[in-house]
């Protein structure tokens, strides 16, 4: 199909303009505002005890959530792509729940279940475990919102490669476990990598659900996104910009990793 030259240019301008207005300009403004008063003030602002604590909290929470979601995601993907069991459609539908439900509702539901007055609240309190307004709650909320990515990336890859290779390995004497490590896992590794990157991006950037369960205890339960909001609410605009810039840098690194993995994935499938 040949499109008129003017149309082609027009469409390109429209596409790039849309991206620029929504993404490029706001992100650039953040970077501009961040470094407006020099690098030193930025460094000071992101090395305050609160900022450092928020940074490490974000990293810790994300690592735990992503590791758990990767293990769960691969098991689930195997069940969906290979398993034959009743209620498979239900599992399939439930996995998308975190996409469908607003994060703030997820946060509230966690409070209802694990909060002091929640279902498990008294049992947990008696056991001396505090979930809500504490580290475990933030981890739970983050796991919940980033749950679907690995499953959704790996399942189609498993379906695509089929089970021929796994069956061949079985006839050659490999146990289920050996087949998984030697055949299945290498075949889906780029799918997993891509899913991990997406989960990481989501986990680091999560705000709504974490905001509900965090309790906003400065230096303890404040993640990077919450720090941005807190500084913004306190009219510490340059501080908010600096924290945002840090988040944006992490996001850009993730994006870069994602592009690389995606290319590797396409290459290995070719």
């Amino acid at each position: 199909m040949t499109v008129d030259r003017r149309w082609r240019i027009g469409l390109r301008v429209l596409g790039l303009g849309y991206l620029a207005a929504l993404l490029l300009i706001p992100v650039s403004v953040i970077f501009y505002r961040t470094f407006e008063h020099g690098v030193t003030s930025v460094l000071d602002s992101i090395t305050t005890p609160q900022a450092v604590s928020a940074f490490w909290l974000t990293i810790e929470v994300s690592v735990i959530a992503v590791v758990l979601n990767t293990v769960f995601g691969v098991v689930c993907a195997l069940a969906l792509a290979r398993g034959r069991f009743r209620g498979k459609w239900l599992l399939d539908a439930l996995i998308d729940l975190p996409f469908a439900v607003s994060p703030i509702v997820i946060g509230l539901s966690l409070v209802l279940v694990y909060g002091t007055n929640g279902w498990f609240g008294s049992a947990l309190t008696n056991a001396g475990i505090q979930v809500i307004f504490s580290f475990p709650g933030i981890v739970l909320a983050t796991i919940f919102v980033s749950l679907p990515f690995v499953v959704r990336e790996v399942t189609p890859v498993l379906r695509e490669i089929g089970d021929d290779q796994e069956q061949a390995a079985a006839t050659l004497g490999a146990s289920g476990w050996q087949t998984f490590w030697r055949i299945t896992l290498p075949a889906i590794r780029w799918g997993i990598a891509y899913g991990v990157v997406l989960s990481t991006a989501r986990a680091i950037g999560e705000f709504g659900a974490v905001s509900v369960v965090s309790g906003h205890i400065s230096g303890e339960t404040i993640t990077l996104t919450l720090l941005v909001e807190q500084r913004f609410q306190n009219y510490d605009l340059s501080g908010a910009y600096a924290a945002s810039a840090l988040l944006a840098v992490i996001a850009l690194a993730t994006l870069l990793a994602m592009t690389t993995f995606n290319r590797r994935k396409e290459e290995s499938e070719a």
Partner: protein
Amino acid sequence: MIAARSITKRFGEYVALDDVSLEVPDGSLTALLGPSGSGKSTLLRIIAGLELPDSGMIEISGTDATNVPPQRREIGFVFQHYAAFKHMTVRDNVAFGMTIRKQPKDRVRDRVEELLGIVGLAGYADRYPNQLSGGQRQRMALARALAVEPRVLLLDEPFGALDAKVRTDLREWLRRLHDEVHVTTILVTHDQEEAMAIADHIAVMDHGRIEQVGSPLELYDQPANRFVMGFLGPVSQLGDKLVRPHDIAVLSEPDAGTFEAQVTRITYLGFEVRIDLALDGQDPVTAQLTRDEASQLELTAGDIVWLRPTAGTPVDSIPGDAPVTTVPAAAADDAAE
């Protein structure tokens, strides 16, 4: 000996195998031949342990293997689409079964070299499967299956994904390999020419049943029923006889016992010439002549000729109501499975 005894397998309502029994002698090359949906692949997968039968029993070398998992059946399985381990080199593919069995490294290395030599991939050990052609991939898959010294080699449409030339080369190569290695082999195919060209025994299957087991010649000359007759090669009915295309003499003059027919189409297939003919009140007939015979008759489409069966089977003597086909079975079934 490999034996299947009264195997029945259903997929939901669909009966894939209906009380099937088969014995495969040691050292033989047996073909399971049938159209798509005949149950031949399912039977092979049950022998391999990749599917479990609903009822019945599988015996390998006299022992009950019905509930033995595929890992411990000592089989080699070759898939239609190669099932190459894409992330491994040819060497690691072939070595896989031996590595799993934790055999000594130098022994594995020697055996892999030997097998790659046998299958003609000597210089290819460090390549990846996607750097090989289809035929090479399938030879690699064969080497991989043979590496574990299986008691039986199971081939599921092994040449089905290859183009015609490679297919013919590989099946002759497989026959020679079998004469050298002597491993009991079961081959699933929908191509009757392939089965006849390489198998000692053929089991013809249809609708989840085995219709007949025998040598290629027995099946061709003494088919048990019309389905087997039609599946092993084209058949036409001429008067009260079922005849093969090469059992029809084409004459330019009428004679006693001849049938008048009109030439509808002449197809030159190299040495062989195929002539489609229309008869009054009968189904169309295909005759096969040599190039010389055809050129002596100087036929063109539209000519009137007379046909005489030179051999054939009386219609009443062969059971079955399966439609007799004038289309070569392989051509009709090329898109199978």
